[in-house]
């Protein structure tokens, strides 16, 4: 069973289909695995009851030979910033510690309709603000790679719980969210596949918003094929999210890896992604894969995206401004933490918010409001929006020359917890999101795939980006690379 848990969705589906195992067996094995890896703290809530109900329904479909979906009976996990009806959704915050949504996020609803079974809700940085999954009221999530009882590496974030759950086999796929790299960053550190789809391809309804103009649901899986299965299930227009694209979604079907070829594929290496903090081992891995693709017939060329350096600063301003506005909804009256304060409405708001948000969230609100002050609006906020266009234009220019971009995902392998916490949240994000947030600024799809282990035995990953809606191409290239590098996975 352990072997099956670290296998792929197709294998599990086959065993379910042939009645070797039942959806309930599979769910129970996943729950046992989640409990056995409890020390890594991937989950905030295990949803045993809900999952068992779903597994029972799945079994009935299998018995009646009605289980036609490729995900029927497959255990999944969901980051705890997606609304799940009747299951608490905390955003790892005191503010929403007792919040129980009355509706399902569209992505969860679609997974349920496809017969998937929920194992649990995973840990994150509070309100998804972070790149380590260390700022959670439920304590930090720990990376499975290199873990010892008194020392551990961070999982990355903010979807660190989802990445660890997938890496350790307590689910077959997990949803994360990605505003500046929150899916790809932990995927990179934990050695799993992490996809940020094109902005608008996947519904955000029920994803508790961080930065509306950049947020997308992300997918974490162990293989590229599994990622395609999940994307095919959750993508497409949602009448309840006006920012989803109306063009009908065409299901992606990737050929078997033997039939994939990179001959003539134009791959860009944006030279600005080699920034001064890039680790030598990551650089070498980047070069090795570029060489490998070149040797197999791809046209690999260096290109320039001059505004890359400004992207992280621009991102930081826009993020804090949108956060300041988005977090205004939390006042403690209709839902969320309510302080014991009755002197005035405003005082109740202020006290509830001071108690309900951690320092990172409060600081981002204060800073965002500073940039939005009348005297600063043009200077910072509008200037950042203009720089955002320059960054987006860099991508458009790149597509005149090349079809996809190959870059590092993160600048290094996972840092040790004790080193990571020495830096402030902003410094952590400024460094860790360097290569990932430009894709969010431009809305383009990006995927992180694990390549190899570093000398210390930690995953090194690379990122592929493509033009809007080029998911079929970047996923195909990811699968091509995956098949050659044969990344080992957690043992």
């Amino acid at each position, binding site marked *: 069973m352990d072997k099956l848990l670290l296998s792929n969705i197709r294998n599990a589906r086959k065993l379910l289909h042939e009645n070797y195992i039942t959806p309930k067996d599979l769910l129970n094995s996943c729950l046992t695995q989640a409990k056995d890896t409890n020390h890594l703290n991937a989950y905030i809530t295990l949803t045993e009851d809900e999952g068992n109900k779903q597994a029972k329904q799945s079994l009935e479909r299998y018995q009646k030979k009605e289980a036609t979906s490729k995900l029927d009976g497959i255990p999944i996990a969901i980051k705890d910033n997606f609304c799940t009806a009747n299951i608490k959704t905390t955003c790892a915050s005191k503010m929403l510690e007792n919040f*129980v949504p009355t509706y399902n996020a569209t992505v969860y609803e679609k997974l349920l309709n496809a017969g998937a079974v929920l194992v649990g809700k995973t840990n994150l940085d509070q309100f998804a603000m972070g790149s380590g999954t260390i700022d959670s009221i439920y304590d930090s999530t720990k990376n499975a790679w290199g873990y010892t009882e008194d020392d551990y590496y961070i999982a990355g974030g903010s979807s660190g719980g989802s990445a660890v759950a997938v890496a350790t086999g307590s689910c077959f796929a997990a949803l994360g969210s990605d505003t500046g790299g929150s899916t790809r960053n932990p995927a990179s550190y934990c050695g799993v596949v992490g996809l940020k789809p094109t*902005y*608008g391809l996947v519904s955000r309804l029920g994803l508790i918003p961080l930065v509306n*103009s950049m947020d997308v649901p992300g997918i974490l899986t162990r293989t590229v094929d599994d990622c395609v299965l999940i994307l095919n299930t959750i993508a497409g*227009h949602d*009448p*309840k999210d*006006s*920012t989803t694209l109306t063009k009908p979604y065409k299901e992606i079907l990737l050929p078997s890896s033997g039939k994939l070829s990179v001959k003539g594929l134009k791959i860009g*290496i944006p030279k600005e992604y*080699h*920034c*001064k903090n890039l680790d030598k081992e990551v*650089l070498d891995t980047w*070069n090795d894969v570029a060489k490998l693709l070149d040797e197999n017939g791809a046209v*690999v060329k260096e290109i320039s995206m*001059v505004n890359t*350096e*400004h992207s992280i*600063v621009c991102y930081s*301003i826009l993020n*804090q401004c949108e956060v*300041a506005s988005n977090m*205004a909804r939390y006042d403690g*009256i*209709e839902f*969320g*933490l*309510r302080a014991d304060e009755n*002197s005035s*409405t*405003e*005082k*109740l*708001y*202020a*006290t509830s*918010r*001071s*108690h309900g948000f951690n*320092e990172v969230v*409060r*600081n981002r609100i*204060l*800073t965002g*409001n*500073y*940039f939005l002050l009348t005297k600063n609006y043009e200077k*910072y906020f509008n*200037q950042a*929006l203009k*720089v*955002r*266009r*320059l960054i*987006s234009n860099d991508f458009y220019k790149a597509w005149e020359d090349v079809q996809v971009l190959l870059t590092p995902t993160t600048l290094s392998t996972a840092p040790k917890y004790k080193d990571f916490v020495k830096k*402030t949240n*902003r410094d952590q994000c400024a460094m860790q999101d360097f290569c990932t947030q430009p894709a969010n600024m431009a*809305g383009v799809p990006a995927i992180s795939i694990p390549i190899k282990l570093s000398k210390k035995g930690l995953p090194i990953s690379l990122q592929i980006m493509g033009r*809007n809606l080029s998911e079929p191409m970047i996923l195909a290239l990811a699968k091509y690379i995956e098949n050659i590098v044969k990344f080992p996975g957690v043992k």
Partner: protein
Amino acid sequence: MNYISRSIVRLYCTKPRVILNRKYLVPKYPAQSTIDARKLPERTKIDANTIALLERLSLVDCANRQSIETLEEAIAFADQILQVNTEGVEPLVTVLEDRPLVVREDEVTEGNRRAEVLLNASVVEDEYFVAPPGNIPLEARENLLHEEEKCN
């Protein structure tokens, strides 16, 4: 051309580049920053009035010494963007700017969950949310820069 002369040509004319290109398909050296550190504005100092204003706007009464420092750091970090030439560039608010957003018909499709919705409120009376008296502006805290100001 025979082998030797070809080698010589390579040796003299193209060798370094060929070998570099062969070995390094990715840039060997980090890109140089275009930010001129000497031209960055002086570090912004946040005064008590600004803090009072930000707290009132943000409705979090927790600007302690450390978070003021964090705010000043964030401003210094943001100042780098002032050096980017954006003359004639239009702001990009959303990547969907080139298309109209589709809105639904204004029809009730679901809902009627009053009981469940009210369950998430800490204080309710019958079918109402309860709030303390309104229209009382938040008073600025005394001692805005107090070092001991603790949150949580």
